[in-house]
Structures are given as C-alpha cells and as structure tokens.
C-alpha cells in the first residue's frame, strides 16, 4: 500500500495515514474486501511507530471504512456507492468549512468568499 508520512508535516502522523488510506478507499483504489497490511507491517513500511499506526487503524475503523476480523486481518469495508459519495462530501465539506472559518476571521463578506470559491474552482483544472 502506497502511503507516506512525514514528521515535518504539521498534520499529526496518524492523521496523515488516515487521510491517505481514506482517499484510497473513497476513490476505489482500495476495494471492498481488499486486505490491509497488519499494523506492525505498515508501521515498518511507513517508518512510523506501532501505536501511531494502531491509532490510524482505530480511526478508520470508527469511521466504518475498514473492519478487523480477529485472526484474519484487516479489510476494506463494503460501503456501497451512496455511502461513498456521502463520505466524499463530508471530507470536502470539512475543508471548505475550514476555508470559510479563515475567511470569517479575516472579515471577508459572503460575496467575496463566494467569488474566491469560484476562482479556486476555475483555477484548478482536473489535475489533482
């Protein structure tokens, strides 16, 4: 599984893992039933501590994205297309809300925020 983390990123390490695995599941790169590496395997691969990796898995499990079957391992949960769309929207909304929060802090009017949002949309082509 292609995931990388960096302690220089201000986002906590476990969250970096959560974000990347979540994206892989929501975009379908990881499919329902796909096995995930064990916690200790992934920790070694990422050069991240066991507890950090464990915490990322707990978070993903709490979000319903993965399931752990005792003795068998950890697998991608079967979410169904509607849930996937809903979760995608939730993730994006969280970021948009953060943008709005910053805009409010800087005392921009709703009109201006709206404009900025459209500019951001136009400025970014399909490249991700």
């Amino acid at each position, binding site marked *: 599984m292609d995931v990388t*983390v960096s*302690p220089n990123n*201000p986002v*906590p*390490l*476990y969250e970096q893992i959560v974000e990347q695995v979540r994206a892989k599941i929501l975009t379908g790169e990881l499919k329902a039933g796909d096995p995930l590496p064990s916690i*200790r*395997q992934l*920790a*070694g691969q990422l*050069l*991240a*501590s*066991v*507890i*950090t990796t464990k*915490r990322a898995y707990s978070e993903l499990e709490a979000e319903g994205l993965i399931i752990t079957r005792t003795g068998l391992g950890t697998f991608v949960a079967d979410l169904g297309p509607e849930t996937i769309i809903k979760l995608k929207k939730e993730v994006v909304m969280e970021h948009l809300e953060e943008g709005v929060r910053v805009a409010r802090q800087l005392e921009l009017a709703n009109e201006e925020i709206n404009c900025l949002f459209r500019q951001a949309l136009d400025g970014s082509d399909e490249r991700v």
Partner: protein
Amino acid sequence: MSENVLTLDGVCKSYSGFDLRGVSFELPRGYIMGFVGPNGAGKTTTIRLIMDLARPDSGRITVLGKQMATNQIELKRRIGYVPENHEFYSDMTVSWTAQFVGRQYPNWNEARFGELLRRYDVDPRKKVGALSKGTRAKLAMALALAHHPELLILDEPTSGLDPVVRRELLSDLLEFVADGDRSVLFSTHITSDLERVADYVTFIVNGQVVASDEREAMLERARASNPTASIEDLLWTYAKGGR
C-alpha cells in the same frame, strides 16, 4: 498481555555533582521507547544502572520480570546492549570481534551476523579501528542483534550518524519489534529520531523523569495549546522547568 519488559521504580543514585532522583518508568513488551533529555540529564547513568554496570542507592529495577543483580548472566544474554562509546579492540578485525563477542552468547547466530554485515555493508576483514564512525555503529548494532535478544538497549545509537544511516537504524528498530514480542529502549538527544518510531517517550531533565507516556497521548495534550507541538517543543518546555 501488556507485560512490562522494563520497570524502574524510584531509582536514585548520587555521584559528586550529579544526582539521579527517583527515576521511574515502564516499558511494555513489543514497543519502542525513546529516552530523551539534554546532554548530562542522566540518560547514560540510568542505562548503566539498568545494565547493572553501577548499583542504585535506592529504588528497584526489573528487567524481563527479574532483578538484574541476581540474574545478571541470564538477563544479559537476553538483552542486546549498545553503549554510547563502543569499546572495541581497534587493532582486531570485525570477524575477530564477532567471535570474541559471540562466545559470550549461547544464542549467537553466526549466519544472522553475516547477513547483518552484508546488509549494513561492513567488511568482516577490516580492522575495527579503520571503520568510520557510522560503520562502527552498524557493527555494534549487528553484534547486538546477532544473538536474538528480547530487549534492545541503545545509548545514543544515532549520535554522529549521517541522516541516511540514521534512518536505516530507525527502520531496523521497527523491524525488530515487528513480531510484537521484542522491545527497544533507546536514548537520544535528537528529538527527530522519536517523531517517527517511538511508541513511548520518557523525558529526563536534571536527573529526574519529568514525563513518561505514549508519545501520541503526550502530543495530543500539547496540541490543545499549540496545534503544531512536537517532541522538541515538549523537551524545550521541560528543560526550561515547565510542565
């Protein structure tokens, strides 16, 4: 399940000009603990007490469930210890050194040692004195790992190493604990070593343990007041007398 491989309980030791005061912490089996503090804080003294190279004035040290003082030979065979200054005979070759060290361990695995040397790119025919600092550190690691220890105790293993070798070493520590049965205590004053691989961090300042906990939990608490708090920030706060 969460049995401790190392327990220090109120360990005190006085030297002229330096006191270790009531050092307590626990390392559960299967995890990596970073032991961090400024130079001169008492890291090496604590490790020497754990290894029974000095005796505490008071307090209790339990290693792999037993007292070191009365089970020294058995316990030392189950520990891989890398001191801060590797005491090798500089005129002797790597192979000779391995034979010399290997004789002390019934579990010594020559094949495993050879494999580690190849992996670390250490020439067994070279004299130890001719090796670079980084290569000597790798040799010390290979010697410590070749007898399949359950507990690795490393005193400043990364100090003086270049970033590439440092990362390799950290990755080896994770591989070492990958089966969940083996544990690592390593001291360092380089906080970035801990940001990745340490499950637990114990901070020592001025001969006293000021904090010892899961790294994630400590950082989480610190982030409440500083969203980008790092181990380095915590060490700075503790070193300046804060909590």
